[in-house]
């Protein structure tokens, strides 16, 4: 019976119940279900349950160990925060989908085999796509479609890898595949994971979709898809060297795009890519400190990034604005939102005493200990960039800068409560990192608060701020959009449609005329009166190659032959051509059958 307590099942059941319950009970359940999942994740003993055989392969949908517990617990906690943040929503659709999304993410973290992982992988992709579709922003529908197609492509990569692997090794167990990185199966699986972790060039779906989700939906999206992929990478590819550089470059890539971005939530979305870069790099380094760092940073990141998205979402909710070039001076109307946002900004910027400081530095230190000077410098550069944008640029242009005339006011109390809880978690993790460190997958003796570390961090951040204020006018937001690696499929898709409607359409018309009309007409004439058919064809051919002198004579003889043709001249009828096609296919099938037999 304990199998029924599987958190993913609990949440999917709750998601089904939420829309059926009266509004108040539905809201209560949407908070209570993630709380229950949190309790199960924290209290379940380590081990594997609910195993079953599936066509000779062993499935283990519930495997609990230190790594899955910490991700499961943080995902559930995030589910609680997200549910509180969306309590004011009148419609239950997003509440319900949010629970399915959390269920998918928990299913991924608890999956002991790759097939279960795949099922929940797709479940969370569907739920996330539903959140984009329900976004209600301009372009939400198209962005949701793109999200769905990109993730279905990633799912196909993953599934083909899983099937190849199962065929090769006869096992579906989800363990480290770093040693087998030479096989196509592992590459396909890695590709699927990297797509969900938004590693460039596979990551453009993230800044495309997140800003188009609703205010409450985006908060959930920031947490689950990329971080469940980080979990899968930690579990599946620890120490895969390619990830070191991919991660380090990814951290810088997100920062570069953030400079150019004008949409507040898209700027934050680019910083998700940047932050996930630290985790991917940590997975690639693969030492105990680095993997602990990746897990710790994912945990801290989920909370502070949600807090930042909640802040930008609150501004969007009360002012309807999301472009920085339309904002300014909002601190007067919403000082509490600004304060809470700043706690998230301090955390992501890794200020001492905030959560990012105790988690990000683990990855950076691990790069140092492994003597990887390039990634070390790139990650430190990206840290400066993170503070520059989320800590300085965004709050400066949103809350100060100039008086844009937009006043804004504090958002509903439930939104502030969720932000307050998230901010509290950021500060608590920063002040007492021991509680987080104790839950990491490997024994951890890391000490973030050394005198040298604290002064270098403060020095780095203060001089970044100096640079910001010196070159402030270069950062003024301008309305623009940035080309990203989604250009091939966004512009490519419309070019493909133009090709379909234009040249290919004309070719198809030509082909239809020839195959469906001319060819059957000729065949039917030939079968009814072969002699007359030959004569007419010959006359037509001669007419085609005629000289001006004999053209009139030939035309006359052709008309006479057509006149004399016995029986009806063929006319195109759909039924007739359908029968012809059926006969052709049956003939083809017969031929194939004999050839193959």
């Amino acid at each position, binding site marked *: 019976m304990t199998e029924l307590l599987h958190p993913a099942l609990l949440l999917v059941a709750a998601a089904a119940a939420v829309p059926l319950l009266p509004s108040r009970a539905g809201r209560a359940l949407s908070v209570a279900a993630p709380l229950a999942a949190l309790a199960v994740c924290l209290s379940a003993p380590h081990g594997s349950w609910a195993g079953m055989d599936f066509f000779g392969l062993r499935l283990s949908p519930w495997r609990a160990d230190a790594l899955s517990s910490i991700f499961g617990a943080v995902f559930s906690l995030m589910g609680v925060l997200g549910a509180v943040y969306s309590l004011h929503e009148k419609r239950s659709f997003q509440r319900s989908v949010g629970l399915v999304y959390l269920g998918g993410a928990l299913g991924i973290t608890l999956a002991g085999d790759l097939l279960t992982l795949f099922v929940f992988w797709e479940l969370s992709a569907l739920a996330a796509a539903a959140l984009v579709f329900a976004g209600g922003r301009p372009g939400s529908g198209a962005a949701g479609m793109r999200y769905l197609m990109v993730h279905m492509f990633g799912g196909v990569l993953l599934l083909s890898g899983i099937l190849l692997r199962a065929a090769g090794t006869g096992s579906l167990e989800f363990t480290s595949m770093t040693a087998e990185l030479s096989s196509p199966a592992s590459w396909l699986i890695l590709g699927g994971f990297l797509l969900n972790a938004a590693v460039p060039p596979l990551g453009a779906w993230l800044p495309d979709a997140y800003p188009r989700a609703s205010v409450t939906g985006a908060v959930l999206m920031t947490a689950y898809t990329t971080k469940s992929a980080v979990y899968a990478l930690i579990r599946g590819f620890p120490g895969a060297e390619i990830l070191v550089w991919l991660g380090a470059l990814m951290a810088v890539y997100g920062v570069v795009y953030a*400079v150019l971005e004008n949409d507040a939530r898209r700027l934050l979305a680019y910083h998700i890519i940047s932050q996930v870069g630290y985790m991917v790099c940590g997975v690639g380094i693969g030492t105990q400190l680095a993997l602990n760092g990746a897990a710790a940073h994912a945990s801290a990141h989920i909370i502070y990034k949600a807090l930042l998205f909640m802040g930008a979402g609150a501004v969007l909710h009360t002012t309807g604005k999301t472009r920085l070039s339309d904002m300014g001076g909002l601190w007067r109307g919403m000082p509490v939102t600004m304060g809470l946002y700043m706690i998230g900004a301090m955390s992501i910027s890794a200020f001492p005493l905030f959560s990012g400081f105790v988690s990000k530095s683990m990855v950076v230190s691990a790069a140092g200990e492994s003597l990887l000077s390039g990634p*070390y410098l790139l990650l430190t550069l990206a840290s400066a960039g993170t503070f520059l944008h989320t800590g300085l640029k965004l709050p400066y242009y949103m809350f100060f800068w100039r008086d844009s005339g937009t006043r804004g006011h504090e958002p509903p109390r439930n939104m502030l409560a969720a932000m307050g809880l998230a901010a509290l978690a950021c500060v608590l993790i920063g002040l007492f990192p021991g509680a987080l460190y104790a839950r990491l997958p490997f024994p951890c003796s890391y000490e973030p608060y050394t005198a*040298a570390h604290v002064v270098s961090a403060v*020095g780095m951040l*203060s001089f970044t701020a100096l640079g910001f204020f010196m*070159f402030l006018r270069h950062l003024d937001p301008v309305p623009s*959009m940035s*080309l990203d690696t989604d250009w091939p499929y966004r512009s490519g898709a419309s070019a493909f449609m133009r090709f379909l409607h234009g040249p290919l359409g004309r070719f198809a018309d030509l082909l239809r005329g020839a195959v469906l009309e001319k060819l059957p007409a000729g065949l039917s004439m030939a079968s009814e009166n072969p002699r007359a058919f030959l004569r007419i064809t010959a006359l037509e051919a001669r007419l085609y190659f005629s000289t001006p002198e004999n053209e009139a004579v030939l035309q006359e003889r052709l008309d006479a032959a057509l006149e004399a043709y016995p029986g009806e001249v063929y006319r195109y009828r759909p039924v007739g051509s359908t029968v012809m096609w059926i006969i052709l296919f049956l003939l083809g099938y017969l031929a194939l059958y004999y050839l193959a037999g």
Partner: protein
Amino acid sequence: MKERMKKVLAGRLRASLRASLLFIILAEVMIVHYLHLGHPYFWFENFPGFASLYGFFSCVVIIFASKWLGKLFISRREDYYD
């Protein structure tokens, strides 16, 4: 009168910010470079005030490199895909 007060205050604020930046970099140089409380991973970290200088350098590089890339090919009109 009010305008003058504002100016004086802004000047004071700027001066104190400058002083605190100086203090921070001096603290870093003292603690990391002379007291050897940290354990640098790489040779370049032995440069006095490395973290602060690198922070400033990063900020400038990020701003200008991104702006340059944006002009080069990244930034487009908002309705590019419409």
